[in-house]
């Protein structure tokens, strides 16, 4: 007797739940979520060189996206059980590979986010392809993700070497100087950046008068040989383009200032820079430097509102990687909501060709041809110390590069 009362109560509860859920789109029983929940996986560098520009604060950004999603949809949300798994890949491809497999197989992760460091990013793309699970890359720069390594389950969300080179190389050549000297770290990322920049500079009518690959990692920390050489080249370069990143970029810029190259008529352009890099060098050390930014927190009111909320959670202003993680998580959750399922193939169909507008993606479009997410990019210039009026507001946006021009055309190497 007692048993049958229990059964009745349980059935009533099921009916009630089903009744409430009935308001949600397409929740017609046979298409639903695996395990009735969504798990987002943030796989990135949480202890090394890239942990500040993305790292744990990107996990925070994804948590914000989940909270906002729940607030938007309330009881009509496809599920309220949305959680985040996170792991440190230490920028090592083999670790990234193992962690990605673990996330998909054992942690029930539906979508892997972030994954900086190109070599690690490419490994995870292979895992996503093999497991037929989704992967939105934010942190890595290589165009190979939408080139010969592209696949149905991988999307490249924020930026790539083409975007950086095209924005900075082209505009700087047109506005600051035609003759360039390029200094790059001599490994995959640096070589890729050098090629992209040389192409952009040449097509804008400029000349690369000299280029050097510096040791990577540069154990001596010294770049003076290259910095001394720059002004002596003939014709003399008006722009030093440095492709170094993180701590190596800090070394180059410190020594660029020591040798007073700006006073000698050699301006500075930086291949890849994050807000956190400017913070550690101080704007005074970088004043006037131009670079391409995928997003800037104080660009407009909408970005600023996001940045204010982010600061409350983290105590720091967001880099473009943080905003892009928020955007990627948001768009995934919306796609699942619209499809009513977390089935990867169905979600991919919903995303392909979709136009998007969110705090990070302006005039955004998820290209069906190669899964490159295109959006407006920004040519930015570091303010002089006198122009900085509030902490972390280090940059002015010189120009918005429209989404259609900011990224390369779909590569013929990519066959989805």
């Amino acid at each position, binding site marked *: 007797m007692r048993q049958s009362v229990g059964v009745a109560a349980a059935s009533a509860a099921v009916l009630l739940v089903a009744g409430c859920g009935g308001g949600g789109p397409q929740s017609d029983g046979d298409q639903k979520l695996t395990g009735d929940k969504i798990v987002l996986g943030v796989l990135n560098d949480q*202890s090394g060189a890239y942990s500040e520009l993305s790292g744990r604060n990107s996990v925070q950004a994804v948590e914000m996206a989940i909270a906002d999603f729940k607030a938007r949809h309330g009881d009509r949300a496809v599920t309220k059980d949305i959680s985040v798994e996170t792991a440190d890949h230490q920028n090592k491809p083999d670790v990234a590979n193992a962690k990605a497999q673990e996330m998909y197989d054992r942690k029930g992760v539906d979508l892997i986010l972030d994954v900086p460091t190109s070599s690690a990013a490419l490994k995870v793309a292979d895992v996503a392809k093999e497991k037929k699970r989704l992967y939105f890359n934010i942190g890595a720069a290589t165009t190979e993700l939408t080139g010969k390594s592209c696949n149905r389950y991988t999307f490249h969300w924020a930026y790539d070497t083409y975007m950086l080179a095209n924005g900075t190389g082209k505009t700087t050549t047109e506005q600051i100087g035609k003759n360039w000297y390029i200094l790059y770290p001599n490994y995959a990322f640096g070589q890729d950046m050098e090629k992209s920049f040389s192409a952009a500079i040449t097509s804008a009518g400029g000349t690369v008068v000299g280029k050097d690959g510096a040791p990577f990692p540069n154990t001596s920390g010294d770049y003076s*040989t290259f910095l*001394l050489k720059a002004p002596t080249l003939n014709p003399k370069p008006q722009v030093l383009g440095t492709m170094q990143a993180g*701590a190596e970029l800090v070394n180059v810029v410190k020594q660029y200032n020591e040798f007073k190259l700006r006073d000698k008529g050699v301006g500075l352009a930086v291949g890849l820079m994050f807000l956190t890099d400017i913070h550690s*060098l101080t704007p005074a050390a970088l004043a006037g430097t131009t670079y391409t930014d995928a997003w800037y927190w104080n660009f407009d009111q909408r970005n600023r509102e996001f940045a204010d909320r982010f600061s409350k959670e983290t105590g720091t202003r967001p880099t473009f990687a943080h905003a892009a993680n928020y955007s990627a998580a948001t768009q995934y959750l919306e796609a699942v909501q619209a499809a009513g399922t977390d089935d990867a193939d169905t979600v991919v169909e919903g995303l392909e060709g979709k136009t998007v507008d969110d705090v990070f993606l302006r005039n955004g479009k998820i290209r069906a041809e190669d899964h490159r997410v295109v959006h407006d990019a920004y040519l930015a210039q570091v303010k002089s110390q006198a122009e900085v009026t509030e902490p972390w507001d280090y940059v002015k946006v010189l120009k918005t590069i429209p989404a259609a021009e900011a990224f390369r055309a779909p590569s013929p190497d990519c066959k989805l």
Partner: protein
Amino acid sequence: MTGFLQNTFNGLVSGAFYALLALGLAVIFGMLRVVNFAHGAFYMLGAFGAYVLLSEAGVPFWAALVIMPLGLALLGMALERAVIHRLTRLDPLYNFLLTFGLTLILQDLVKTRYGVQSSPYATPAELSGSVDFGLFDFPTYRVFILGFAVLLCVAVWWVLTRTRIGMVVRAATERPELTRAFGIDVGRWVTPVFGFGIGLAGLAGVLAAPMRAVNPLMGADLIIVIFAVVVIGGLGSIFGSVAAGFGIGLVQAWGEAYLSEFPIVSQTIVFVVMAAVLLWRPAGLFGREEAPA
């Protein structure tokens, strides 16, 4: 010609850092037979200490240049007494592992508190200009580093060759058993010498802060080259470490300047030199075959 002089000058500046760090390693190895893997971490602590002193207490560069080496020397002496000293009787590998572990702990402690992002540290205003050498001008700060390091090396050489303490240290380095047999209390000098070596590393760190990225891993990157320098100079040879330090700085600068078409050569030149020296003189350029202990 101007370019050559500039590159030479730069090589000597890099070499100055190598020499200060290698010198500390050499005296420590000589006296304790400990290969101090944590040397790079103390270099990092020197630079970080300068940053923390400036940003949190407003202590200027010049004061940091005195405070940090002394503070770290004391910390080094405490460590020597507390742990290193307990392992010196065992296989040298134990202390190598111990100091490696110390490195990881120190790096992670700094990382936990300050993150991995490089911290800003400006060149002191009075040294931020350039010195005009006629043919070329050169950043004042680099001239200062070079002068300071050379003076320091000369001072250490004077202490080692002209004072009683120096005599004991040299004797203990070269013939530890014999020195003891003469009734000299070698053990009394072990702790101060360890502290002195650590202090030098801290000093190099403070000097590096204005021109290098100040972050928890800055020492880990450098220590590999320093070991190569010490091996080339001859493990435990005090003069050898200084000479090899400046020499390797020069070789690197010239290699980058004149072999830039062959990046593979210019990037590995330090280790090529090391391999060549080891084949030709296994004990290093200025080292002697290990005396029987």
